[in-house]
């Protein structure tokens, strides 16, 4: 639990503060006897500023891959031994520490922790020096006590830091401490000797101290340069590792989380957000924290976008927007990098961090982040491309499979009527005069009937092919609903016409559609009702609302269970196959109806009729009749029959089987 870890760190810090305060109180009682008396105000300020100054010149030491930041405060402490008593040494050290605490706006707990450590270190070091040196002043005899005092200062500095680090990193205390000891020993010796050098020079007059300045500056500059190079080296190494880790293929959202995670650890931040812009221009993001990754709110993404601005290919450090206080409470710096212009994807990485760890702009971490943002953009676009390719491949395979199935089913469906048609003709030829007149008649009728079925199937398949390719020509005109219904009734085959009842049609209902195609749809629906509900009335109900006209075909047959109601619109779905084959259906009727309806901008739906049966409803957008002109009114008269090539007039397509199926009626 990270929450409990934070709590443990806080309690450790509080305990150390308490111990420091106790130490300061106890030692101040002891050192009263060796009281130096207060220094002059001038001396107090010189030492306090010296502490603040060396505190602002951090240096680093690397020891077996551990990096320790240190300052030359040991030198100032050693000089202080000779000019300040333990109490005032502690006070000046604390005052010097106050400046960075205020300037860096450190959290109160951290400030108090640092201040109390300074006070305890100062007073302990001072007391040690006083006890060992016994007021002998400068000279070789004081060198050992001075170094011993400096060691006390160093020890009191690293013990609490090690405790905090061990708690935060959940390591063993000894392990953390042993890691810190060699570097602390080195810096303490360096600092103490420098301090002694300055103090000895100061004995001969304040100006001599200037001689020590090049040494201090030289040490500082060399260290800074080396630190910079090490940083550079480290940075490239970490970028390389992060790049390698992110190069594996992830899903689209995964890649954002991975990039955010890597960016967070690259910049040693407390949290990070990675945002990407998709093809529609919408930004999405993922958040990375030590506790794991998660989503982002749209306000988060917006805020990150604002921070990034249009600074392509560069990183910058901005103040943390108030919005993210919950996400990164300790952060006082937000480093944002936007992928360079011309990247295959637009990506923004933002890392929340504490500037107390060194500002990013100084250490080149900004460049690291912008390089990583550019890399993230490439990876994210690769992932995006890959998933697009996969999707399109899958949908093509699916479409191909459906087409194969369609072709297979069509070929099977075509074979059956063809078999009977050919078989009847062959039988007539081979049996010749051996068949009775009755058998001959039956065979001929069978052949015609199957030929008819074959024709219907071929028409339907061609229609499906045209509809699937979007090649269906439509001729949209304004249609008056009442007139349309009249045409419909007139075109019904005789046996169906007797069963169909037309409800009251609103006189002013009109819509824009392709009259012939719509006719085809409704005729098909009525035909279906006639087939599947062999008894009872079939109603055509036309109703209108302010913006819609609906044409319903209602039967009172067995109906279709709710679970199958959408399936009936699929290709070659015949819910009860035994009856359909005898009904001569092609299994494409409703599929075509829905295709046509959607082509016309209409909706075709199936509901259950109250009391059982099916209700198919075509819903069309309504138009106002008042806008109709004379020409459109003329078009709404019953139109003469015309054929338009392969895809013939729909009512003809429906009527033809009726006239052929009842040849006895047409032959007197």
């Amino acid at each position: 639990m990270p929450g409990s870890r934070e709590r443990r760190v806080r309690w450790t810090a509080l305990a150390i503060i308490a111990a420091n305060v106790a130490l300061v109180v106890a030692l101040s009682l002891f050192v009263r006897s060796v009281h130096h008396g207060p220094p002059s105000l001038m001396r107090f300020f010189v030492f306090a500023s010296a502490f603040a100054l060396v505190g602002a010149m951090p240096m680093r030491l690397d020891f077996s891959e551990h990096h320790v930041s240190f300052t030359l405060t040991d030198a100032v402490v050693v000089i202080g031994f000779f000019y300040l008593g333990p109490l005032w040494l502690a006070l000046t050290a604390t005052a010097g520490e106050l400046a960075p605490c205020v300037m860096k706006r450190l959290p109160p707990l951290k400030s108090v922790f640092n201040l109390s450590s300074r006070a305890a270190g100062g007073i302990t070091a001072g007391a040690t020096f006083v006890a060992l040196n016994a007021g002998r002043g400068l000279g070789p005899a004081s060198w050992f006590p001075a170094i011993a005092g400096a060691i006390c200062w160093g020890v009191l500095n690293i013990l609490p830091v090690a405790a905090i680090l061990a708690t935060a990193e959940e390591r063993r205390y000894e392990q953390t401490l042993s890691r810190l000891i060699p570097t602390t020993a080195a810096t303490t010796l360096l600092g103490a000797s420098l301090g002694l050098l300055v103090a000895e020079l100061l004995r001969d007059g304040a100006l001599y101290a200037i001689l020590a300045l090049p040494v201090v500056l030289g040490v500082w500059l060399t260290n800074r340069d080396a630190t910079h190079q090490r940083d550079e080296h480290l940075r490239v190494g970490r970028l390389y590792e992060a790049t390698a880790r992110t190069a594996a293929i992830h899903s689209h959202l995964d890649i954002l989380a991975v990039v955010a995670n890597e960016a967070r650890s690259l910049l040693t931040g407390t949290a990070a957000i990675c945002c990407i812009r998709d093809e529609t221009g919408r930004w999405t993001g993922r958040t990375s924290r030590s506790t794991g990754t998660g989503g982002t709110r749209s306000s988060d993404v917006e805020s990150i976008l604002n921070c990034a601005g249009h600074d392509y290919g560069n990183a910058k450090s901005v103040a943390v927007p108030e919005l993210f206080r919950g996400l990164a409470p300790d952060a006082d710096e937000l480093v944002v990098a936007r992928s360079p212009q011309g990247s295959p994807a637009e990506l923004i990485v933002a890392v929340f961090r504490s500037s107390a760890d060194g500002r990013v702009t100084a250490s080149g971490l900004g460049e690291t982040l912008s390089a990583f943002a550019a890399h993230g953009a490439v990876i994210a676009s690769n992932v995006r491309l890959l998933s697009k390719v996969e999707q399109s491949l899958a949908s093509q395979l699916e479409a191909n499979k459906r087409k194969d199935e369609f072709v297979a089913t069509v070929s099977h469906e075509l074979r059956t009527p063809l078999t009977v048609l050919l078989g009847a003709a062959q039988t007539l030829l081979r049996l010749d005069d051996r068949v009775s007149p009755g058998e001959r008649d039956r065979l001929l009728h069978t052949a015609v009937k199957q030929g008819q079925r074959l024709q219907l199937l071929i028409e339907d398949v061609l229609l499906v092919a045209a509809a699937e390719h979007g090649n269906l020509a439509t001729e949209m005109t304004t249609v008056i609903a009442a007139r349309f219904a009249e045409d419909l009734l007139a075109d019904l085959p005789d046996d169906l016409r007797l069963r169909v009842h037309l409800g009251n049609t609103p006189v002013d209902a009109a819509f824009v559609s392709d009259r012939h195609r719509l006719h085809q749809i409704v005729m098909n629906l009525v035909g279906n009702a006639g087939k599947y509900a062999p008894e009872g009335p079939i109603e055509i109900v036309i109703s209108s609302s302010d913006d819609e006209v609906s044409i319903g075909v209602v039967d009172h047959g067995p109906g279709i269970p709710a679970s199958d109601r959408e399936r009936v619109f699929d290709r070659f779905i015949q819910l009860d196959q035994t009856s359909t084959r005898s009904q001569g259906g092609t299994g494409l009727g409703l599929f075509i109806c829905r295709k046509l309806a959607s082509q016309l901008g209409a909706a075709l739906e199936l509901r259950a009729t109250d009391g059982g049966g099916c209700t198919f409803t075509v819903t069309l957008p309504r138009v106002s009749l008042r806008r109709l002109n004379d020409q459109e009114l003329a078009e709404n008269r019953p139109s003469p029959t015309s054929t338009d090539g392969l895809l013939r007039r729909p009512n003809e397509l429906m009527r033809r089987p009726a006239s052929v199926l009842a040849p006895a009626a047409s032959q007197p």
Partner: protein
Amino acid sequence: MTPQLSCLFVDDDPGVRELVALNLSHEGVKVHLAENGFGVEDMVRSLHPDVVILDVMMPGRDGYQVLQALKASESTNKVPVVLLTAKATDAEIWQGWQAGADYYLTKPFNVDQLVHYLRLILTQPETELTAG
């Protein structure tokens, strides 16, 4: 005097049933008809047909299921079975052989060919038995 040969024809399409019945009865074969795959084994046991002609795609119980049931039973596995089906791709024909068909004819079929095959099957039962 040879006893009259008989055939059981199973197909869900009435047109095909009528056609096969007409042609075979003119050849002097007694034709029994069934319009789906249910109860075919019982019909074979009671009618003792000399050959069974089976459609494959039938609602409820398809020809493969009927064929496997016929071949699995001692009392019916000696009767030669012809699959007569619209399934005409190589893969489908192979599937038919795998299912245990003795003969395989695809729709649309040539009536002369069907009659010729049946004549061969029905007049040479011994050859078939040894071959099977």
